[in-house]
């Protein structure tokens, strides 16, 4: 079969016909380094796949998510290497707005690219890969010695009600984009490429970002109607990124410039929340609902008055979510949050909306998350309205250079 150059999705549409699509290598070239907030969110922007860090972490949070966790079916290290190589190439093509694969116009062959993004813009797609603790426990792969000390399964945490079918996984892929179909397409095509080597264990769509990861972005609201992530780390704060997000000399060499990814599927009991008086909602979180300002304040970004009192009681209640999650109350520890709202139809047993927050955080050490969640899980007033039903942890290796592949330093 004659290999055809990759087809650029937009150009394919413009060309006279699929069979005549003898176009050159698509646009979107691979720039060194990451654009942070520069990529336009009007659809035309693309985020370079290759770079020192994987994209999708310090990238300004896109609006949509498709996240998938996979079980590895083989313990042959060569197969895993080939998979990561093929996934890297396909992910880079998709992020550049090109069609995946080279066989897309042969009448007798199923097209390699599934086609639903033809005519769609790159839409700032990012694809981020991670490796779960269980990957390092497969004897055939021989990775035990390379396992980062920090990559231990998350301990049981207070208020956990985890469903194993919605938790964990050997490998994860996070696809984020401003176009839901572009994010879906990335996961679908990568799952297809992996067929026979990996099986999808669970996947989660997110329909709206609940975090800002750049100063250029407004703070979005979660499904409780509250501004979420006001105090988040911003990618422009490179000092905080180095200190709290990127793995440094403490990690094994293959993890330097990487990070650890935690996901928590947090089901919100929206019917209960919606019946709570406004004042209770605000005291539960510790912020005013509409302005996002700390209780007693007027501006979203004013510092939390954690010491302030009114009538002998703390202005921000002791069990308020923002207090317990604040860096000050957690020994200075911070995490980069990058979560999404989700809904998955109707809860079968209750007939209520199955909806909530698909929490994603990136941190240099999972212990940062564990310490915060231990406090939240046992003390947070918000626990009345939420349940953690899914949980996973992944080591996210640094980015790849063109010609290399994600995870190469671990797997080669």
């Amino acid at each position, binding site marked *: *079969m*004659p290999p055809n150059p990759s087809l650029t999705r937009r150009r394919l549409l413009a060309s006279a016909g699929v*069979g005549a699509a003898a176009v050159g290598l698509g646009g979107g070239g691979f720039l060194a380094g990451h654009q942070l907030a520069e990529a336009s969110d009007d659809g035309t922007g693309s985020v370079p796949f290759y770079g020192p860090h994987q994209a999708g972490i310090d990238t300004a949070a896109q609006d949509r998510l498709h996240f998938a966790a996979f079980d590895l*079916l083989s313990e042959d290290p060569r197969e895993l290497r080939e998979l990561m190589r093929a996934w890297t190439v396909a992910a880079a093509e998709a992020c550049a707005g090109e069609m995946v694969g080279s*066989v897309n116009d*042969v*009448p*007798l*062959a*199923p097209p390699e690219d599934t086609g639903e993004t033809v005519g769609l813009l790159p839409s700032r797609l990012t694809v981020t890969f991670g490796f779960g603790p269980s990957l390092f426990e497969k004897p055939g792969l021989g990775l035990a010695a390379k396992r980062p000390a920090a990559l231990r399964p998350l301990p049981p945490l207070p208020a956990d009600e985890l469903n194993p079918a919605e938790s964990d996984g050997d490998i994860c892929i996070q696809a984020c984009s401003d176009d839901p179909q572009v994010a879906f397409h990335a996961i679908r095509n990568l799952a*297809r490429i992996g*067929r*026979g080597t990996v*099986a999808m264990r669970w996947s989660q769509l997110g329909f709206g970002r609940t975090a800002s990861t750049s100063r250029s972005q407004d703070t979005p609201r979660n499904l409780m109607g509250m501004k979420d992530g006001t105090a988040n780390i911003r990618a422009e704060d490179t000092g905080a990124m180095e200190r709290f997000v990127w793995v440094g000399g403490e990690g094994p060499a293959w993890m330097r410039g990487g990070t650890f990814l935690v996901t928590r599927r947090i089901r919100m009991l929206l019917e209960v929340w919606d019946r709570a008086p406004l004042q209770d909602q605000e005291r539960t979180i510790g912020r005013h609902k509409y302005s996002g300002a700390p209780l007693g304040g007027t501006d979203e970004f004013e510092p939390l008055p954690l010491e302030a009192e009114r009538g002998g009681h703390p202005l921000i209640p002791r069990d308020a979510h923002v207090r317990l999650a604040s860096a000050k109350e957690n020994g200075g520890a911070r995490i980069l949050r990058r979560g999404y709202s989700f809904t998955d139809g109707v809860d079968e047993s209750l007939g209520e909306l199955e909806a909530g927050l698909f929490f994603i955080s990136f941190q240099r050490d999972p212990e940062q998350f564990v310490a915060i969640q231990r406090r939240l899980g046992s003390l947070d007033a918000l626990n009345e309205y939420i349940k953690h039903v899914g949980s996973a942890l992944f080591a996210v290796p640094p980015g790849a250079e063109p010609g290399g592949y994600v995870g190469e330093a671990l797997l080669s």
Partner: protein
Amino acid sequence: MNRDLVRTLLCAGAFGLLALTAAACGSGDETTTTEVAEQVTNPKVEAVVADYRDYLQQNADELVATTEPFVAAVVAGNLAEAKALYAAPRIPYERIEPVADTFGALDPKIDARENDVAAGEFEGFHRIEKALWEEGTTDGMAPVAEQLQRDVEALAAKVRGVELQPVQIAEGANGLLGEVSASKITGEEERYSHIDLVDFEANVEGSEAAFEAVKPLLDESDPDLAAEIESHFKAVFNSLEPYRTEDGFVSYTELTKADTRKLAREIDALAEELSQVPAAIAGDE
């Protein structure tokens, strides 16, 4: 790859198994009859087609032979025996199902599920299956059974004259796996008797036979793909083994979601590779 040849084959109905003649392809297409003729006279291609036609014929004959005692039991009103004999003709039928599909009305007459056809037109294997298992009787089934016998005989006669091209045989191999994914792994095919795993295995056997027929062509164009597909076929058959019983397979109703998920995963892995074959052997020409 020869694009014209591919187009002609496509035009000739590569999504079914039956070759229409190139001349029937309609106007506007610069029909390349000569190339088709060249392919047909290629001895290796002829051997492929002959091999697979033998397989079709054997299974069509077996279908007729195993339907006879089943029909006799139904006509005689012997419920237990009819149930015991139901699975045997299902196997050869499911092995060559995509061929039957191309004979228009015969497939629905023989193999339709109740929701596939208009009310009052439900006949064939599954109508009798419903009577035996759900209604617990053979009452009223004698004419249905006798018609079924005539229909499978008509099918066998048509199979004798079928014309095929290797690409269509390879497409048929894919089609059979599509059958597994669409209706066997979901338990929809044999919804009263729950012998879906019997059909599952027969579909995969038929797919393997079609693949083995075209394999000599694939060995030349892409031997690695051929080897991978063979190992995936083994994996699929192995994945069925835990469910095998003395006289067939466990009932579909005994499978857990984890069981069906594993079976589906093996089928998907095989099908993804197998779907590359038609283009790979067409490129060989």
